[in-house]
Every structure is written in C-alpha cells, then in structure tokens.
C-alpha cells in the first residue's frame, strides 16, 4: 500500500465519528436522497445518488465497526480500500457534489449525507485524489493568499476605481475599527461594485469598518478540497488580522462557502473560539434595517426572485434576512417553488466551479435552476454569493436566457436614500 493511500485511509478512519456510524448503520438504501440531488435529477444516473458517493467510506466503516466486517477482516475475506477505488470515486465526491446539503434534508432516516461528504473529501485529498482545478486553487490560496491569485495591489487598484466612482474612501488597515470586512476574489475581480455598495451603506449608517491588506480573502479552498490543515491556515490569517486590527466583528461577504468556513468551521479548524464575532453581511444589513439605518428609496417594479446560496441559507442559517432586505426594494418579489432551506443549488458550489473537469456536468445540473426560473417566468434574479452569481450567469448565457443577475448588497446600495426614504417607484432594470 502506498504511503498516500495509507494516509488517506487513516484520515478516513479518523473521521468516522458517532454521527457517521449512526448514519451508515441506519441507511436503509431507499434511494430517496437521489431525488434531492440536482446531479441525479438532471441526469437520472443512479451513480449520482448522494449516499452512493460515499461507498468507499461506507466500506471502511463496515470493515472497522460491524460484526460481519470485522469477522471477514479477521478471516482475510475483506477487500481493503484500493487506490483504484478512490480514484474511481473522485469525480463522484468532487465533480458531482456541490455540498449543497439538500440530500441531508430529505433522508427519511435522518442521514446527514453532506456531513459525510465533507469528511470523505478529507480522506480523498490525503490520499492524493482531488481535482486539479481545486488543487491549484488551494495552492494559490496558500502561497498567494487568494484562490484566483489576487494580491493586495490588485485589490488596491480596484479600490481606487471604486473610490473614484462613489466619492468615498475605502478604509484599509484601520486599527480599532468595529468591523473588518472580507471579500471574495470573485467579488474583487468580477463584482467590485460590492465594495462600493457596502462602503456607501456603512458610511450612511456610520459604521466604523476596515479592510485588512494582509487578509482580505474570505474564501477557503481548503474547505472545498477537504484539507483541514490548509483550511485552518487560511482561517488563521483572518484571525491574525482581526486580532492585529482589534476589531469586534469580521464580516463574511456575499459568498456562500466563505460563511461556512468562517462562521461554522473556522473555530473548529483552529481549535479555539474566536476573540471576535463573525457576522454575515446580510445579518449586518438586516440589523441596520431594523435600526432604521438603511433607508431606501424606490422599488424595482419588475417581478424578481431570489436564489438562496446553499451555504448561507440551508447550511448557514441566514434565511429570512435576505428576504426582509429584498422586500424593501422589490415591488413584486416571487419565491421559486423550492426556496429557503429547500432551495436548489446553482450547480457550482463546493468547488465544482473551480474544477474544469466538471464544467459540462455543472451546466447539466444548472437545468434544475433553469426549470425553476422558467416556471416562475422572471427576468431578474437576485442572489448573495459571487460564486452562485458567476455560475448562474454562465448557465443563463449557455441557455440563452434573458435573466439579469443582481447582488443584493449592490441593489440595496443603489436604492439607498440620502436622507429619509421617499415612496417613489423607479424602473431599474
């Protein structure tokens, strides 16, 4: 057995905890999880059944923790996990899972399948089986500080443009600020409007905030690839900057997995609670709304809908905030049939969008969203994750669909009232 395979198997063994054992023990092979997964519903290929993606981990559990598995191992009948098997499963574990967690909501016996996929990826990457796209993104994140290779000078450049645009200074490295905002590379490069949007809103609400020149990246490729060590290193950078600047809050940006990484996994990765609080930008904006510090004017007249980023809503717990905020600026906000905690993923989460090998499958999976949008007949889609946004835009373009995708923070900033809100109606799209 090669060293890396041994390391992979050892890692998988270490990840079999009480929940995993109870899930595998309880699975009745009913197949209901298949219907929850967009990779199955859009391909009808049984191999995309969520629990099937965990077969190697299940075999290991069976060998280690069940009477028959242990007996077979003693008698020399059991087939140990092989490198070939893990290699064969690599596309199932990475390309066909966005870690959206929808399967975990529907299993009748209560299996949290995505909890196990996250663990399975730890073993896969330890054994050396992870997609090239994700490997290089993680490497860039560790060596350069961003999965897209964005360095601070690039951000500084964008900041300059934004400052010229909005006529406000973007604070960088301000010690003693209340909030430290993080960004995703995708926002910096593709949607810098986000920076301007929060700057305008914060300025009006009198929020003391800052960016950190040495830790502006919120995304965490370590989590997507499944490497806790690397993920912890990326979290440590944020923690160090927040401690250096002595902030009370770190703001997670409009990015899904960054929120999971910072809010829910971060303290566990670094092994200690944070000395600050993590707040999602939507939570903060919703607080401002409730304190009347987010006055808006005008409403979008067209019918529009909201795409729930899985990691913010179903897996993050920020569910009602975006809806309350959107209601402020939308006259005709219609929900898709499955929304909120039962939303359908865009198809690009969990590292799928970084994995070139999965490009075609991702577009096939997007058909789920296409059907949802067609059923609703809207031409405007608001979301709160830069990665969802890119994936949605790609899918819409591929399908020649005339639907505009907007970020929520920008949409709010566009409707920000200088003084008190005025009840007018505008056409913005």
């Amino acid at each position, binding site marked *: 057995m090669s060293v890396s395979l041994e390391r992979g198997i050892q890692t998988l063994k270490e990840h079999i905890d009480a929940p995993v054992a109870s899930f595998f023990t309880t699975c009745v092979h009913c197949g209901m999880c298949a219907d929850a997964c967009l990779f199955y519903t859009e391909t009808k290929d*049984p191999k995309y059944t969520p629990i099937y993606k965990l077969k190697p981990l299940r075999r290991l559990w069976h060998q280690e923790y069940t009477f028959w598995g242990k007996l077979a191992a003693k008698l020399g009948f059991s087939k140990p996990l092989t490198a070939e098997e893990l290699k064969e499963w690599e596309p199932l574990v990475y390309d066909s899972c966005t870690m959206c967690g929808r399967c975990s909501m529907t299993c009748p016996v209560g299996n949290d399948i995505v909890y196990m996929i996250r663990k399975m990826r730890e073993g896969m990457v330890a054994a050396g089986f992870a997609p090239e796209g994700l490997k290089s993104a993680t490497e860039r994140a560790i060596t350069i500080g961003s999965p897209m290779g964005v360095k601070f000078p690039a951000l500084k450049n964008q900041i300059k443009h934004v400052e010229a645009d909005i006529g406000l200074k973007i604070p960088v490295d301000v010690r003693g600020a209340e909030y430290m905002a993080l960004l995703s590379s995708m926002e910096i490069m593709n949607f810098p409007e986000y920076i301007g949007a929060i700057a305008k809103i914060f300025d009006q609400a009198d929020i003391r905030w800052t960016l950190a020149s040495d830790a502006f990246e919120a995304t965490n490729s370590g989590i997507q690839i499944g490497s806790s060590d690397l993920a912890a290193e990326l979290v440590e950078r944020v923690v160090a900057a927040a401690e250096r600047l002595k902030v009370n809050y770190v703001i997670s940006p409009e990015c899904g997995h960054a929120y999971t990484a910072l809010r829910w996994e971060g303290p566990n990765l670094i092994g200690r609670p944070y000395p600050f609080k993590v707040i999602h930008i939507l939570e903060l904006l919703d607080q401002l709304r409730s304190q009347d510090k987010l006055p808006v004017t005008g409403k979008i007249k067209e019918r529009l809908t909201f795409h729930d980023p899985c990691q913010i809503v179903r897996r993050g717990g920020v569910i009602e905030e975006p809806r309350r905020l959107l209601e402020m600026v939308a006259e005709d906000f219609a929900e898709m049939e499955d929304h909120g905690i039962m939303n359908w993923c865009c198809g690009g989460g969990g590292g799928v969008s970084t994995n070139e090998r999965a490009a075609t499958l991702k577009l096939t999976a997007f058909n789920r969203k296409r059907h949802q949008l067609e059923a609703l007949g809207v031409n405007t889609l608001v979301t709160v994750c830069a990665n969802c946004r890119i994936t949605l835009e790609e899918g819409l373009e591929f399908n020649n669909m005339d639907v505009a995708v907007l970020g929520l923070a920008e949409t709010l900033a566009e409707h920000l009232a200088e003084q008190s809100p005025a009840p007018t109606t505008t056409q913005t799209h």
Partner: protein
Amino acid sequence: MTSTEWLIWVRGPGLQLSLGIFILGMTYRIMQTYFLGRAKNLAEPRGSQWLHGMKTIWWRSFFHPGMTIRGYFTIISGYTFHLGFIITLLFLDQHIELFRSWTGLSWPALPPIVITITAVLGIAALVAVLVDRFADPVRYLLSDYQDYLCWVLTVLPLVTGLLLVYKMWLPYTSLLVVHIISFEILLVAIPFTKLSHVFTIFIARWYNGAIAGYKGVQS
C-alpha cells in the same frame, strides 16, 4: 427431539437466549456508536441542538415537501410493512397470551380477521418493496446482500404465522416451531445487521437535527 420437545425449547430457553442476544447486542451497538463521540463544536451556536434534534426525530416521520413518487412509495410501503408487522406482533391473542404467561401483563387483542389483514398487508408491502428494489435502478445500485437477507428475515415470521393461523403447509406443532424460530432469528439478527436501524434511526435523526439546529436551521 420430537416437535413437542422442540416447541418447549424454542418457547423457553430459545426465546430467552435470542432475547438476551438481542438486548446485549443492541446495547453494544448503540454504545459503540455513542462512544465514537464527536468533536466539541467551538463555533458560537445560533440555536439549540437538543430541541432541533428532537424535532427532527419527529418531523422525519412524515412526508416532506417536494417528495417524488419514489419518496411516497418508500414512506407508504415502509409504514405499511412496519405497522403490519408491529400490529401483528403485539395484537394477536396468542402473542399476548405468551407475553402474559411471562410477565403477567396483557392487553386486549384484535380480532383474528384484523390481524390477518395486517399480516397480509405487511407481506404485500414487503413484496412491493422487493420488486421495487430490482426495478428501480437507484435502489438496485444501492442494495447489498443485507438488504435481501433482512427482507427474508422480516417476511418469514409473517408468512409462517399466517400459514399457522390457516393451518397450512406443516403439522401445527412443527409449523409453530418454525414460526417461533423465524422470529428468534430475526431478533438475533437485529443487532448484527442493518435491521438495527429500527433503533439507530432515532440517533441518526437526532444528530442530523442537532447539527442543523446548532446553526439555527430546522432540518
């Protein structure tokens, strides 16, 4: 041994033995799972684990929104055979009588015709589930030997019991021995096979709910 001697054995020591293995085996299985433990969560919670865990145990017992034909079939056939089995087990007067002879406790039985219906429905649902296991490509791919073995172990007590009530196949005493043994094998098999899901389902659902509840999400 004559069939009467067999009957005395399976009703007495045989039953005690299988019950003992069942209880000890299941306790071991649950303890083994529990002691695997899980890491303490250091992230600041947004909701209660306990409450959401308990809620999930309850909510997963029903249909959920957005379910497909496969889902409805699973839930309806699942309830039919589980309930068919349990009602037959608990409300046939011979079963109650046996229980009373050990413990002194008893409760009203259901009329034999009702029990026949629950047993037949149970068997019918099990047959449907088996056919579907072959017919549905998803289920067929997921299935392993234990799915089929457990199916046989579950259907046997129902079928032999029904034959017994209608005095078919074997002489009464021999059939009764076969019937009781089939139940004892089922009992012994529970802790050692995926049949243990009848208990661990509560643990799995609880963990699922607790993990989501910690983040303030109802799962």
